[in-house]
């Protein structure tokens, strides 16, 4: 799975597209890995822009859980932003909104993760 990326100061915004399910989750995990390796204290923060994600299954959510655990272990910060309504419902029902940092928009996520990243985002 391709992840388009944009950098705002110390924060990388990654944008997966489509369905994250049993057939695509391995690709999603592999695409995420290099960014999660740098998601650590003093390095990058990672924000996943889910605006173009149509569906996520349990195995896709597990990838997010593993990434979140890795970020915490490394002292980094990971967030998920801009969930489509159906995907937001999946997060709610699976209780992932209780264990991941989920934000209404990319801007909201940047505001929480990194003031310099928010400034860069607002500067266009």
């Amino acid at each position, binding site marked *: 799975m391709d992840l388009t990326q944009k950098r705002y100061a110390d924060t990388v915004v990654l944008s997966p597209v489509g369905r994250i399910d049993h057939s695509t989750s391995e690709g999603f995990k592999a695409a995420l890995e290099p960014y999660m390796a740098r998601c650590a204290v003093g390095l990058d923060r990672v924000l996943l822009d889910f605006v173009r994600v149509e569906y996520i299954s*349990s*195995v896709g*959510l597990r990838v997010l859980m593993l990434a979140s655990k890795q970020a915490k272990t490394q002292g980094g910060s990971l967030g998920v932003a801009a969930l489509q309504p*159906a995907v937001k419902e999946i997060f709610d*029902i*699976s209780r*992932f909104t209780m*264990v991941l940092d989920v934000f209404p928009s990319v801007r909201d996520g940047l505001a929480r993760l990194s003031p310099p990243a928010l400034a860069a985002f607002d500067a266009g």
Partner: protein
Amino acid sequence: MPADERLTVKFWGTRGSIPVAMNSAEVRRKLIAALLRASGRTLDTPEKAEVFLERELDFAVSHTFGGNSSCVEIVTGRRDYVLCDLGSGARVFGNDVLATRGPSGNTFHAFMSHPHWDHIMGFPFFMPAYASGNRIRIYGCHADLEEAFRGQHAAPSFPVDFSRLPAAIEFVRLEPERDYEIAGLRVRPKLQHHGGDSYGYRFQGNDKVVVYSTDAEHKLDDLAEIRSFADFFRDADLVIFDSQYSLAETTSIKEDWGHSSNVVGLELCQMARAKRLCLYHHEPVSDDERIAALLAETRRLEEITRGDRRVEILAAFDGMEIAL
């Protein structure tokens, strides 16, 4: 099995881990909610009150999901009884047999998921075991199943030793992934992830399929395992599924605790093209409102993830019957 008989599933115990009971505060809360809804109405006959309860009140107000631990009956239309697990619900089942069929002359086939206490604790209070002339066959894949049953009857835990039970009791060791013909059903056990292992059962009879899969954790990154369970559930009319925890719990703080979630149950049923998913082995901490909410959420999840086929979502409660 007579051709005109349907397969019916009766739930005698649906709670996970340990039996629970409503306390007075919870009963009072239900009563207050019901009385408030009834204000201004004239409910002056039992019939009117019954209609009001069934039509006007939410299930979590007018009923309870109950608190007995695992015990499910599969009614085949034959005289022999077929059970899954002998948790505290087996006590209620046994008393019902005495009331409806009499104390003796009955045969019971009990398929055990595993010997953890909540799944065997009903047996010391299973009255048919105390009557000669009853035959009880206990099936399972665990080598130590009989030892577990005998152990809970032994002093100092219980006053009646297993050896003194008058019924004819046999333990029958099954092998997973093999088909057996028992009590008019084709039965296939399957190994599941759980502490000390557990086994699910696929029952087939009268062109209907019931899968009993409790105390099972599913490793989401193991696609071969996911596919093997989808095959196990394939085209089932009913899948009784351990949904004790949320998906977030099973992938974080309760990973490797040996239980599953409503989300994974639905995904497996969708992959398997099963007709009905029954949420089962309810978390003991959950009150009726919480289980009702879990049911509503799972139905909503099914709606927003539905492919070309609907899966009917149910939540088991003590006393529930499903005719297939």
